[in-house]
């Protein structure tokens, strides 16, 4: 009876999903409702979760509900706490859902909605969710150990160190590119700058409140904080219109970049309760609220997709980022399809809170499907805009000029029509001077969200409010990530420097603290600054680097998963992690070599450096350089980016070599060789004594 019911329900879901995908496939050239994409996505997720996640759990990993999890074995009420699965699901989802799934799909929309939708769905189901679930499984079987630790114990000390350095490089690039997204959103926007700046005093007030007035009352202070934020958004409109304060909050990209570095430094050095923790409450709750709001908005408004299914820019000539569909689509949309960063979270706090192994599919696989759905919604928000608006907003000044007339003329050449007056009217609708050349995803998403949310509440009159609400919500949680990430990087640097100078390891030492923080901020600040002054918008060179780094980390996690399956003597199921690992290797290696060696100066860093060197030798200056010194800096910057790309390639190639060697070695041995915590009935007396001592 139960089987029949399952067959009927999932048969119906399969038919519905097939109809939705059919509508998407057959209506090329005419606009379709976004609801079809939502329905197709939900059906794909339901089927994948019911069948593939269950297959992974039962056959591939062999989850055992009787085997105690770290939370049960070491239950201390503090770090290791068995947590109800719904509660843990929310925690895990909030930790993995960041700005990535909101930005990547918006950038990838330049190729049309279809490639993005397909990669987000296929990638999440076969790669991203598999990676998250596999890492959670491995970490749960190893007392909640981190990814780096597991690479060391399962693959050896050298790959362990390489992975650790790789993670640090990725962190730096992530922080730089996220900061760049915020700078692009706030530059020349007094309203946005004011509201984001207002979060600092609001957070400090909240911090003092939770410290001295009513300690630990997170709920009530978060409510107060949200009300203050809404007042700040409303007040921002008046500030922007004010003849004195308006210009005072109108900052250039370079000023903002320097301000963000100074701010990031201060925020991660001062006590966390004062600024970082309270802003974390605001950003977390606002993020969840905004995601739910967007989902409800799409279902109520049921907007039509305006972007073509596929644009001519799949050939690599697009203005938003350069490079052909393969491999650049697959690294541009990282989070939402597959994100290596999740491997750090799935091997962080989540395994220490897991009640039972049989919840691994829900937490590991299910939460990633939700994040994938966030990416689908971001893609919808970007593609319901008029494509002419989308390209005017996302193309660099170097391509479309700096005014509405030149922008309208430029997008008309690509076949999208809009009048300069309409572009200016849209800017006025959202309360901005200009919406041109705001690559980086956030402003486009904000206009898309304003378009959808104003259809639910407030109509055109509220459009400016919703736009700045969306900008604030993105900027807020990006800044929280940047500050918290700066601290994480600082501890990693202290750890690495501690090898040479033991004094650097002391996390309480002010000298070590300030030195390591300054080094971290200097590293991401360098990439941020070069991104801000780049005439092609910065995102063009930094986002691919970020994508390569993130997908490379995913490949490392999947290689580790494959090694572990071989060592468990489950190699006949290892294709489940090996196939996505190989696909990611193909994408990252191709993209990496193209970024290094491609003859097109828009893609290849070395070709770009050569062009500037030749111009310099001939005594010419190329924009944006105004002096020979600028030219030198641009060339050095190209070499830094090349070195970083080469570093990523080195990391991933060595991991492949070590991974293959570990698999072959495990194949030759005819018994399992994994380094797992033994199942309960195999617990020795010593283990139990250890547990008691730990408790």
């Amino acid at each position, binding site marked *: 009876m139960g089987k029949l019911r399952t067959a009927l329900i999932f048969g119906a879901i399969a038919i519905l999903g097939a109809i939705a995908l059919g509508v998407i496939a057959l209506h090329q050239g005419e606009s379709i409702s976004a609801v079809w994409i939502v329905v197709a996505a939900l059906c794909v997720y339901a089927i994948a979760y019911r069948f593939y996640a269950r297959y992974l759990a039962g056959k591939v990993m062999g989850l055992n509900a009787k085997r105690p999890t770290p939370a049960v074995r070491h239950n201390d009420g503090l770090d290791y706490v068995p947590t109800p699965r719904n509660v843990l699901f929310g925690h895990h989802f*909030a930790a993995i859902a960041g700005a990535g799934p909101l930005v990547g799909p918006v950038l990838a929309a330049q190729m049309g909605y279809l490639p993005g939708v397909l990669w987000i769905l296929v990638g999440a189901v076969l790669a991203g969710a598999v990676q998250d679930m596999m890492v959670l499984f491995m970490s749960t079987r190893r007392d909640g150990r981190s990814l780096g630790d597991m690479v060391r114990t399962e693959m050896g000390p050298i790959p362990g160190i390489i992975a650790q350095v790789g993670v640090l490089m990725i962190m730096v690039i992530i922080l730089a590119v996220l900061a760049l997204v915020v700078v692009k959103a706030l530059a020349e926007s007094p309203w946005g700058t004011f509201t984001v700046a207002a979060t600092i005093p609001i957070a400090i007030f909240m911090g003092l409140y939770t410290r001295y007035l009513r300690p630990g009352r997170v709920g009530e202070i978060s409510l107060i904080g949200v009300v203050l934020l809404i007042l700040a958004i409303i007040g921002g409109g008046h500030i922007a219109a004010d003849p004195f304060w308006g210009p005072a909050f109108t900052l250039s990209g370079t000023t903002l970049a320097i301000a963000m570095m100074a701010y990031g430094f201060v925020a991660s050095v001062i006590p966390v309760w004062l600024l970082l923790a309270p802003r974390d409450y605001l950003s977390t709750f606002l993020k969840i609220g905004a995601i739910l709001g967007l989902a409800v908005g799409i279902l109520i408004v049921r907007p039509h997709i305006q972007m073509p299914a596929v644009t001519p820019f799949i050939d690599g000539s697009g203005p938003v980022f350069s490079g052909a569909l393969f491999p650049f689509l697959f690294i541009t949309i990282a989070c939402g399809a597959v994100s290596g960063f999740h491997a750090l979270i799935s091997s962080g706090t989540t395994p220490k809170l897991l009640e039972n192994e049989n919840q691994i599919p829900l937490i590991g696989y299910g939460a990633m499907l939700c994040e994938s759905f966030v990416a689908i919604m971001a893609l919808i928000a970007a593609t319901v805009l008029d494509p002419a608006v989308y390209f005017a907003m996302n193309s660099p000044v170097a391509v479309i000029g700096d005014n509405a007339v030149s922008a309208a003329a430029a997008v008309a050449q690509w076949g999208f029509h809009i009048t300069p007056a309409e572009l200016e009217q849209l800017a006025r609708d959202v309360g901005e001077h200009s919406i041109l050349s705001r690559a980086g995803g956030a402003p486009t998403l904000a206009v898309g969200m304003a378009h959808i949310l104003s259809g639910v509440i407030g109509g055109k009159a509220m459009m400016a409010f919703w736009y700045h609400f969306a900008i604030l919500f993105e900027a807020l949680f990006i800044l929280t990530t940047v500050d*918290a990430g700066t601290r994480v990087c600082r501890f990693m640097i202290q750890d690495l420097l501690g090898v040479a100078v033991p004094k650097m390891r002391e996390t309480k030492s002010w000298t070590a603290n300030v030195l390591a923080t300054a080094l971290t901020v200097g590293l991401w600040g360098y990439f941020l600054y070069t991104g801000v002054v780049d005439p092609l918008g910065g995102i063009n060179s930094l986002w691919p680097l970020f994508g390569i780094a993130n997908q490379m980390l995913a490949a490392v996690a999947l290689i580790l998963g494959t090694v572990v399956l071989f060592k468990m003597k489950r190699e006949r199921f290892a294709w489940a992690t090996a196939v996505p690992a190989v696909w990611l290797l193909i994408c990252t290696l191709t993209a990496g070599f193209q970024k290094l060696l491609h003859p097109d100066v828009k893609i290849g860093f070395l070709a770009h450096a050569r062009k500037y060197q030749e111009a310099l030798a001939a005594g010419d200056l190329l924009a944006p350089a105004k002096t020979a010194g600028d030219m030198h800096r641009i060339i050095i910057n190209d070499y830094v980016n090349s070195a970083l790309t080469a570093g990523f390639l080195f990391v991933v190639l060595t991991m492949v070599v070590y991974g293959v060697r570990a698999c072959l070695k495990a194949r030759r041995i005819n018994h399992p060789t994994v380094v797992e915590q033994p199942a309960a009935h195999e617990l020795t007396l010593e283990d139990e004594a250890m547990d008691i001592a730990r408790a």
Partner: protein
Amino acid sequence: MPRPSAPADNADLLCVCRDALVRWGKDARRTASLMVGQPDYEVYVAHAEATHPDQPPLDRTAFFRLHEARRFGAGGAFRCC
């Protein structure tokens, strides 16, 4: 078919609904606070009293500050891009 005893059933239904709402509310609160790195204090106290009845458990404020410091301390606060 015998007539169902309507009042009693309604009362049961109300109870079930109320219980479900209370449970959801509790779960939602727990989820929200775990999202910002604060586990459930009641669970901790129950655990501490069961395992170490001889030692007084941390008070609410100390428990809160401990987790606040851990979330942003060494090894903590990994968050996705």
